[in-house]
């Protein structure tokens, strides 16, 4: 299996390539439009939808403010129920812990429920390197794994692939030359392929949607029953979960079990939710491990403006709502976490050292904020992170003396003073003359300004500016705005 590489390119470069793939764009647009429509319908039918969003946001924000308290409480209760809680500071540590448990049980194969956290730490590649074969059981993850592809959406990882493409992958990888392309046929093929594996394989690996501090329980939402198979049949279960995924109380699930299914798949409830605490004799695995993963999360808490990023419950609604994601799909983000939430989460997880173009991969239209079931103000965080990127650049010699920085500094100098602006406008009116075409548009600009005119024309500055017009028309009046108001009244 090919090793999945992330963060190899910046967003603009990756997006440019993917925009050439019209089949992918068609698949992504079809899928996101369908989910978005269903989501809008089932959220509109709840009169208390906004109250649920508000409570969800408050519970998540409260938990993050006291994350150390709730994590230790979860640990205490999960341990009391017979679970083993491990703490992993980074990906390497998490991989070591998981590999150790798998090897302790001499397992050569493990079955897996879809988990983005596993993707984040590169778990599959690490297991394979040690001769252990991880088998993805979520239908979409299976498609991605057998197709040697990368997930492009964290609720529906194969959203960029259509049914004919799935058939081709299954025909080849499952040796089923006669397989049809009806979704039912494809689901049946997956069922038959995996069933024997569920019954036989003794170690399972999952993520987790919520860790419940007051009961020590873990909750997983899913559709197919592959999750339940992995959570119930094997002898050993290992759940790798980000430290931010804890909630204070079992009762808080009454909020999230209403908002997450409606946001994620547009269903009133997804087919299966499982909640379990540690081990229960005669029911499910005999051994249960939780690996709590930090991997860059705890430092994010220090920044009060971007801390809300960690409120995310991974429903994917912001991806489906995003006009940029609609065009590019998930792979353009070169990140495990794609879409608007990925654009703010990924650079922060990487300490703003990589993926620095992602905060710019947005039109700041705000659709993501509007649909977020825990009210993460993604546009606000995007702007905050953009300012961090700029500050980082300005701190370097090359950045400080870059054309871009000099240009922006000059613009700021001009805009902060009315007299300077008037002079700049006059200079612009004269200076633009050689660039204006006959149609009154500027079709080409030099240097970095060329980025604008590459894909669109710029209207030339008019011969008379608004300020000049105002001075001419109302210059004699002492308070122009006020008198205009009176005249119109």
């Amino acid at each position: 299996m090919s090793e999945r590489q992330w963060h190899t390119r910046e967003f603009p470069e990756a997006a440019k390539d993917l925009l050439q793939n019209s089949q992918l764009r068609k698949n992504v647009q079809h899928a996101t439009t369908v989910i978005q429509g269903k989501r809008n319908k089932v959220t509109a039918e709840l009169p208390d939808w906004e109250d649920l969003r508000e409570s969800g946001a408050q519970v998540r924000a409260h938990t993050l403010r006291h994350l150390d308290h709730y994590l230790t409480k979860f640990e205490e209760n999960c341990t009391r129920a017979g679970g083993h809680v491990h703490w992993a500071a980074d990906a390497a540590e998490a991989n070591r812990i998981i590999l150790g448990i798998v090897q302790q049980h001499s397992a050569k194969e493990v079955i897996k429920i879809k988990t983005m956290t596993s993707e984040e730490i590169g778990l599959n590649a690490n297991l394979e390197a040690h001769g252990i074969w991880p088998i993805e059981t979520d239908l979409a993850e299976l498609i991605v794994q057998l197709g040697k592809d990368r997930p492009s959406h964290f609720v529906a990882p194969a959203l960029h692939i259509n049914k004919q493409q799935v058939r081709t992958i299954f025909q080849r990888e499952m040796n089923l030359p006669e397989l049809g392309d009806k979704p039912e046929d494809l689901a049946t093929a997956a069922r038959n392929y995996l069933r024997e594996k569920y019954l036989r394989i003794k170690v399972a690996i999952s993520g987790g949607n919520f860790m419940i501090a007051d009961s020590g329980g873990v909750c997983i939402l899913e559709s197919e029953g592959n999750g339940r198979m992995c959570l119930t049949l094997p002898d050993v279960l290992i759940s790798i979960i980000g430290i931010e995924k804890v909630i204070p109380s079992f009762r808080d699930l009454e909020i999230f079990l209403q908002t997450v299914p409606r946001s994620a798949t547009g269903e009133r409830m997804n087919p299966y939710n499982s909640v379990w605490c540690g081990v229960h004799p005669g029911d499910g695995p005999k051994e249960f491990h939780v690996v709590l993963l930090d991997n860059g999360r705890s430092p994010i808490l220090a920044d009060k403006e971007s801390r809300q990023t960690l409120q995310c419950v991974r429903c994917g609604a912001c991806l489906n709502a995003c006009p940029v994601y609609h065009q590019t799909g998930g792979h353009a983000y070169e990140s495990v976490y794609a879409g608007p939430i990925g654009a703010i989460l990924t650079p922060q997880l990487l300490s703003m050292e990589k993926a620095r173009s992602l905060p710019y991969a947005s039109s700041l239209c705000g659709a993501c904020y509007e649909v977020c079931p825990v009210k993460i103000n993604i546009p606000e965080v995007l702007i905050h992170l953009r300012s961090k990127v700029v500050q980082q650049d300005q701190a370097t010699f090359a950045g400080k003396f870059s054309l871009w920085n000099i240009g922006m500094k000059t613009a700021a100098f001009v805009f902060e003073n009315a007299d300077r602006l008037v002079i700049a406008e006059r200079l612009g009116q004269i200076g633009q003359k050689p660039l204006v075409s006959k149609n009154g548009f500027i079709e080409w600009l030099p240097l970095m300004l060329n980025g604008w005119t590459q894909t669109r024309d710029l209207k030339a500055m008019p011969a008379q500016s608004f300020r000049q017009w105002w001075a001419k028309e109302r210059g004699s009046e002492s308070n122009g705005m006020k008198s205009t108001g009176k005249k119109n009244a």
Partner: protein
Amino acid sequence: MPESGGHRVVILESIQRALGTHNSADSIAAEYSHLTRDYTQRGRLDREQLLDLFTDRLLEYDAGVSRAASHTIRDVVAQVLTGRGKGGLVGPAGIPSNWLPIDFTFEVAEGWDAYRLDKTEGVLTGCTVAIAETGSIVLQNAPGQGARILSLVPDYHLCVVFAEQIVETVPEAFARIESTSTLPTTFISGPSATADIEMTRIKGVHGPRFFDVVLVTE
């Protein structure tokens, strides 16, 4: 018994450093109790409307629904099984004998492994609570519901739900299961399904592909 002690301390210290403040458990509990919870707690439907809503939601998921009275449960179960072409079912311990029709086999499958359950025709269970608004039944590890494997591996699941077990909203259901929250708990909303291929909901992947409810209303 916390493991990886070293990293535990490193992570907790990193969190505390980032947050900058440390509050007592009491003050955290006080803050938690003041969080806004203006969402709907209680439903408003009368009994008939509630039963209708629950039925509609189940039908939308492509589950079957049949009504029974407490003295006709076994007859209705027999009808449903005949309709599905089943000769018998397995189930957990604690299934009341008046649910079981005479001409069909029933075996208690406690402790059976997945291979054995995979060969059965289906499973019969009760439930702890059901939610009308979302068409969900909630199973816990209790008599008449059993271990999670029972309602998972067989390809067919028949669930007997009593009218008084049905609540309208999700918060009402949580109020009922809060005291047993540490039991293995499964929310089931229709047969297993996926929307992973072109966002079309397809019934029947790994969980039971067929799911019926017998609704006991009097």
